[in-house]
C-alpha cells in the first residue's frame, strides 16, 4: 500500500499547489518542486517508495524529450535570423554565467552546469505566457518561439555531452568520441527504421484502440533499453533522453502519429509533474556552506546577472531582426523564466553523484524557484518595460546632448 499513499500525497498536493499557482497566474513548476521539498527527505520525509516515484518521474523526462523532438523542425530553423538569434542568446547568457561561476570559485563542472542552468529558458513557461498574455500576433512572438526551439536543440546536445563527459571521467577520455559515434549510430538506426517501416507505422498509428499508445511506448522503451544494453556491453554511454528526442523527431514524419499527440502531451504533463516533485524530494537543503547572508547575496547577484543577460541578448536580437531595441527588450522579458531544463540538468548531475557542492545545488534550486515568478511579472509587463527602458535611454541621450 505504500506506493498508493505516496501517489495520493503527490497527486493531491500537486493538484492543490497547481491550482493555486494557476490562480495566481504563476508558473506551476516551482510549486511542484516546493511540494517535493516539503514532503521529501529535507522536509516531512513522508515519501516511502522513493525509487518508484523517481521512475515515474523519469518516464516524464523521456516523454518531454520525445515531445521536444517531435516539435523540432530543422527547416523552420533555417529561416532568416533564427540561427543568429539562437547563437546570440547562447553566447551572451552562457558566457556571462560561466564568468560568474568562475569568479565565485566553482569547479569547472559546477561552472558548466551553472552556466547551462542560467542560459536555458523554460520553453513550457515561455510558450504558455505568450498565449496567455495574448502576444501571438506580434512578430517577436515568432522569434521567441524559434529561440526556444534552438535552445531545446542545444539542451539535447549539451545533455549528450554532459552524460558522456561525466561518465568518461572515471575512464579514458578517448572514449568520448566513441560515445558520440554510438549515439549517432542510434540516431541513424532510428530514422532508418522509421522510414523503412513507415507504411506499417502509419497504419498502426491510425487505429482507434490501445495499439497506437502501446506502439509509442514500445518504440520509446525499446530503443532506450537497446541503448542501455549496448552501452553496458561495450562500456559506452548513450543517453536515453537523446534517444527519446530523436525518436520523437523521426515519428513527426509519420502522418497518422499526429492523432496520438494530444494524449501523449497529457501523459507527459502528468509524469513531468511527478518528476518535479521527485526532484524536490531528493535535493538536500543545506545552507551550511556559506553564511545565509552571503548565500542570499550570491543568489541575488546570479538572478540580476541572468536578467541582464537575457535583456542584452534580447536587445541584440531585437535590433537585428526587428530593427527595434524596444522589441528586443520585450524578447528579453519574455525569455526570463527558467524552469524544467535547469531542473533536469541538476537532477542528472545529482543522480550521477558528480560532487556538486551543496552551495551550487541550493543556489540553483533557489534560482529556479525565484526566476519563474520574476519572469511571470516581466512577461505581464513586457510592453511597459520595453517602453520605459527605451524612453529612459532616449532621455539619457538627450541629457548627454544638452550640455553642448
Amino acid at each position, binding site marked *: 500500500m505504500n506506493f498508493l499513499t505516496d501517489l495520493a500525497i503527490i497527486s493531491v498536493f500537486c493538484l492543490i499547489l497547481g491550482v493555486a499557482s494557476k490562480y495566481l497566474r504563476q508558473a506551476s513548476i516551482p510549486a511542484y518542486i516546493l511540494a517535493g521539498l516539503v514532503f521529501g527527505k529535507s522536509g516531512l520525509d513522508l515519501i516511502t517508495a522513493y525509487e518508484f516515484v523517481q521512475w515515474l518521474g523519469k518516464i516524464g523526462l523521456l516523454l518531454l524529450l520525445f515531445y521536444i523532438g517531435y*516539435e*523540432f*523542425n530543422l527547416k*523552420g530553423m533555417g529561416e532568416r535570423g533564427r540561427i543568429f538569434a539562437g547563437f546570440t542568446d547562447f553566447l551572451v547568457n552562457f558566457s556571462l554565467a560561466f564568468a560568474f561561476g568562475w569568479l565565485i570559485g566553482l569547479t569547472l563542472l559546477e561552472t558548466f552546469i551553472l552556466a547551462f542552468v542560467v542560459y536555458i529558458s523554460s*520553453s513550457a513557461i515561455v*510558450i504558455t505566457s*505568450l*498565449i496567455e498574455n*495574448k502576444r*501571438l*500576433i506580434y512578430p517577436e*512572438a*515568432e522569434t521567441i*518561439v*524559434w529561440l*526556444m*526551439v534552438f535552445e531545446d536543440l542545444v539542451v539535447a546536445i549539451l545533455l549528450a555531452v554532459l552524460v558522456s563527459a561525466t561518465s568518461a571521467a572515471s575512464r579514458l577520455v578517448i572514449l568520448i568520441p566513441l560515445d558520440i559515434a554510438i549515439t549517432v549510430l542510434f540516431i541513424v538506426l532510428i530514422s532508418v527504421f522509421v522510414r523503412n517501416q513507415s507504411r506499417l507505422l502509419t497504419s498502426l498509428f491510425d487505429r482507434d484502440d490501445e495499439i497506437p499508445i502501446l506502439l509509442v511506448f514500445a518504440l520509446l522503451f525499446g530503443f532506450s533499453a537497446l541503448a542501455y544494453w549496448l552501452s553496458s556491453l561495450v562500456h559506452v554511454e548513450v543517453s536515453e533522453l537523446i534517444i527519446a528526442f530523436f525518436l520523437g523527431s523521426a515519428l513527426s514524419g509519420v502522418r497518422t502519429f499526429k492523432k496520438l*499527440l*494530444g494524449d501523449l*502531451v497529457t501523459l507527459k504533463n502528468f509524469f513531468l509533474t511527478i518528476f518535479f516533485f521527485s526532484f524536490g524530494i531528493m535535493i538536500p537543503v543545506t545552507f551550511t556552506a556559506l553564511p545565509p547572508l552571503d548565500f542570499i547575496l550570491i543568489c541575488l547577484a546570479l538572478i540580476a546577472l541572468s536578467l541582464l543577460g537575457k535583456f542584452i541578448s534580447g536587445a541584440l536580437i531585437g535590433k537585428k531582426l526587428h530593427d527595434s531595441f524596444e522589441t528586443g527588450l520585450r524578447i528579453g522579458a519574455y525569455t526570463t523564466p527558467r524552469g524544467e531544463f535547469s531542473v533536469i540538468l541538476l537532477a542528472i548531475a545529482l543522480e550521477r553523484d558528480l560532487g556538486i557542492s551543496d552551495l551550487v545545488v541550493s543556489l540553483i534550486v533557489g534560482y529556479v524557484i525565484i526566476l519563474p515568478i520574476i519572469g511571470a511579472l516581466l512577461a505581464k509587463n513586457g*510592453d511597459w518595460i520595453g517602453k520605459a527602458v527605451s524612453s529612459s535611454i532616449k532621455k539619457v541621450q538627450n541629457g548627454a546632448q544638452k550640455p553642448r
Partner: protein
Amino acid sequence: MRISELPEIGTKYEIESPKGDRVAVIFLRTGEIELYVLEARADKPAVAKLTSEEARRLGSVLTGAMLTVEQEGVEVSFSEIADLRINIHVCPAPKAIAGKSIKDLAIRKRTGATIIAIARSGRSIISPSPETVFEAGDVLVVVGEHEQITACEREFLQ
C-alpha cells in the same frame, strides 16, 4: 497573407491591411482557434477564442459565400469570380403544379430560372430531367438571376 508555423503552439495566418491594421488567425494545438485583431496604433490586440464551428461560420461570411439572405433564398458569390452572383431560392411546390412536369410548365423557357434540385420526402433529385413530374409536398431549389427568380415565383410558385 503570411503563414507561419509556431512549434508547440500551432499555425498562424496573418494579414496586414494597407492602413496597418493586422488580423491573425491562430490554430492552436489544443484545437481552439484564436482570432487576433490589432489596430494600427493600438497597444493591445483584441482576441476572440472560437470553436471550429464558429470559425467556419465566420469564414463563410468573410469569403462572401453568403452575401444576402432574403427569406428562403441566398445569394452566393465567389471570391475567385467577383462578378458572378447566383441566387438560390428554396420554396415548396404549390398544389397547382403537382402532377405536371418541368417540360409541361416550360419553366426555363418562360422565366429563365432553372430548377436544380427537388427535395421529396426521404430522397432528393439533383438536376431533375425535364420529364420529372412534381408531387405535392415537393420542395424546389431554383437558381437564376434575381429577376428570373421573381418571374418564376410569380408565374408558378404562388
